[in-house]
């Protein structure tokens, strides 16, 4: 009798303990990141906070962690202050929008709602995923909060011709969302051009994860591939809950493509699809992907290369940002000195986001706003001003009237078997 009650109690305790460990809420920040608390000026006008909102569970962590590190490095290098205010990115200011190991738009919306209601937040850096941004922008637009994404690439988030006015529907003329990367109507075609011209490929099997980003970029890619003269043998959509890709891959293998394109991120199927394609006999075809699967080398836990191991030998990816820029060596060295690891694909854009916010804060402080709400609006206005040129780590850039960066550069990376990481191949400039 006593033993049974003890057993029941143990179960209950386990349940409670386990339940406390799951769910979203604030993620613990990365060790090594410091919350900038030291102000260089003797007297500060107060502390303002910048929120970082990204997914940090499972495979998403491999992509998000480097961005957070980049953000904190920028803050540290700026001395933790701008415009006379102390700027803070504490662990409590880092929000996690993942649930059960994958990004979740509803959790992201909940986080942004919490961020806009706290008057001390002057900006949000994030999210990482376009599907999350799609539900967050209406909220931040309504509140007039500056949002800078280091990685969203779906063109529909900013460009009116792709439906952005429906997203920033509360104040369509007020731009509050900017991003440091270019859009998928450039990223997809960049890989298509590279595949046809540099790799000499002709036919391709396209598979996407049916989400905003994955389907968007796959469609952009396929359109350009056909325009360049290639053929798309099949285009499938497989949601992230799919476990068995063998039937899809068998059907694709029957059509003998000489390459595969995956639109999506690691957590929605990247490595699983590659492994299934190898099992179905497509192990020697080129595997082309987007920035969604470029989340670190084979040593990074849960990254695409870590999960795919040797199957990734024919893989190529893109990054919707500049890959080779004058300040790169210095940035990589500073990052490695601070954190001991190499930067991720979007550490630089995260760094640049913080640089933009700090400069905007400096300009805003100069207008002497009356209260935090006024400061928030002044920061937004200063940041999205198309006439302002920013001197970021990625080079000089400015935002266009929709909040997109003027750097329309996409970089191509290939898997290097020797170092088991992605190495830079070339970059395409769509401004030309």
């Amino acid at each position, binding site marked *: 009798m006593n033993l*049974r009650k003890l*057993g*029941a109690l143990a*179960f209950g305790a*386990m*349940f409670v303990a*386990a*339940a406390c*460990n*799951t769910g979203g809420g604030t993620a613990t920040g990365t060790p090594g990141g410091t919350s900038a608390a030291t102000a260089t000026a003797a007297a500060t006008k107060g502390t303002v906070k910048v929120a970082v909102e990204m997914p940090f*569970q*499972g*495979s998403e*962590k491999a992509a998000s962690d480097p961005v957070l590190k980049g953000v904190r490095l920028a803050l540290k290098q700026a001395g933790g202050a701008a415009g006379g205010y102390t700027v803070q990115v504490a662990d409590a200011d880092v929000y996690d929008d*993942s649930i*059960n*190991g*994958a990004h979740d738009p509803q959790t992201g919306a909940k986080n942004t709602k919490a961020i806009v209601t706290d008057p001390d937040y002057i900006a949000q850096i994030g999210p990482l995923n376009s599907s999350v941004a799609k539900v967050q922008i209406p909220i931040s637009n309504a509140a007039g909060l500056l949002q800078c994404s280091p990685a969203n690439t779906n063109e529909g988030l900013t460009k009116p011709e792709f439906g952005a006015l429906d997203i920033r529907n509360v104040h369509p003329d007020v731009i509050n969302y900017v991003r440091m990367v270019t859009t998928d109507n450039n990223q997809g075609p960049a890989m298509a051009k590279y595949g046809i011209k540099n790799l000499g490929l002709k036919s391709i099997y396209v598979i996407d994860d*049916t989400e905003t980003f994955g389907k968007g970029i796959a469609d952009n890619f396929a359109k350009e591939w056909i325009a360049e003269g290639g053929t798309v043998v*099949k285009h*499938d*959509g*497989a*949601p992230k*809950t*799919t*476990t*068995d890709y*063998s*039937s*899809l891959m*068998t*059907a694709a*293998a*029957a059509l003998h493509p000489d390459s595969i394109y995956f639109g999506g991120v690691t*957590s929605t199927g990247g*490595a*699983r699809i590659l*492994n*299934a394609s*190898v*099992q*179905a*006999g497509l192990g020697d075809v080129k595997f082309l992907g987007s920035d969604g699967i470029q989340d670190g080398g084979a040593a990074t*836990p*849960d990254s695409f290369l870590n*999960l795919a*191991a*040797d199957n990734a030998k024919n893989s190529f990816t893109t990054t919707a940002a500049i890959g080779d820029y004058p300040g790169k060596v210095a940035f990589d060295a500073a990052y490695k000195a601070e954190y001991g690891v190499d930067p991720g694909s979007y550490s630089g854009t995260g760094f640049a986001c913080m640089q933009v916010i700090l400069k905007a804060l400096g300009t805003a402080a100069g207008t002497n706003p009356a209260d935090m709400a006024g400061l928030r609006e002044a920061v937004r206005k200063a940041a999205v001003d198309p006439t302002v040129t920013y001197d970021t780590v990625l080079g000089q850039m400015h935002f266009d009237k929709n909040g997109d960066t003027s750097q329309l550069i996409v970089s191509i990376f290939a898997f290097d078997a020797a170092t088991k990481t992605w190495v830079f191949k070339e970059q395409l400039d769509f401004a030309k």
Partner: protein
Amino acid sequence: MTTAAQPVDTTGRRYPQWVVLSVVSAIVVILFATTLTFQPLLSGHPPDLATATQQTANALSLGAIYALIALGYTMVYGIIELINFAHGDVFMVGAFIAMTFLRTGFQATTLLGMGIGLAALGGFALFLGWGLVSGLGIRRAAPRLLALALVVGATVGLEFGVKQTGPITDGLTLTAVLIPTFLIAMIIIAATNVTIERLAYRPLRKKSRLAPLLTAVGISFILQNIVIVWQGTGDRPVPQLVPLVKFELLGAHINWLNMFILVLALALMVGLQTFVNRTRLGRAMRSTAQDQQAAQLMGVDLNQTISVTFLIGGALAGAAGVFQGLYFGFVRFDLGFNAGLKAFTSAVLGGIGNLTGAVIGGFLIGFVEVFAAAVGQQRWSQAIVFMVLIVVLIIRPAGILGQQVGERA
């Protein structure tokens, strides 16, 4: 829980079971293969028998895994009329155990770490051992020690693992690695299932019908969260032990892995059939499924019989977990939910409570899912699976091989 029952249709005619079995299987496979062979005609390509054969092989392997899990659902429902929602997650834990054993085990590098690891595993082994002994009601010392030894041996094996990283080409080594993998997964999951029944379902057996059901849902969440805490939420790769050697059949190059899974799964199912039909414990299970009170009057130990049911169901789920790891190459904490749903659907489709029905249902669902993906509707595959279920249930409410039993008072 029936195996030799005669399905009755509403007009009162009786069909021998083998007739229904053969007819359904023949219809499914022929329809499937024909459609896939001639589907390319729609887009101007020649008929493709090779791909249809390959997809059939895919469907058989997937169906085999679903069938093994469905057997667990159907046995438990047949005997105590409980839909064991935790069964899918027990399968998932089996897959993780197989992954852990194949990769690194629980080995720690420091002495302290090893000590803690061994202590934790030891405690876990004792807990499982207690559950096993107590659940099955083993009274004599020798069988007790045997049960304990099996569980402890399995957990110790899990602690050290075999540190595999890739395909093993030597047949002997492959067998030498696979046998312990299967044994360890099956023993631990069987013991876990029995312990869960002993702790969570048995005390509630005489209470309302709803309490065990909700407890099962709770156990499902507990198992998932334990795995999240233990292994995180991302995909965990499993070493692909079986090399991708192919053989030719009707123009298709089919992996030996598919055949291996199918043959081994069928062997397990035949083993189960033999056990249920030919042994005393099996007879006890069948009689308990038919009428619990009458069986008790005939001298059947109810607790032990139910525990044996969970034991076997757990062992099959553990085997299915190993298949999952070997075939798909990855495990994730939410596998149990998806697979469990499909397996439960299979069990209902085939007639819940009927072992052969669960097997048919499993293969049928495997075929439906592969078919949906093959004709390009992966997004709809789950919806299509459930549509098939609804249609079949409308035509035959008790499932394909189910019995039309009246409501018990």
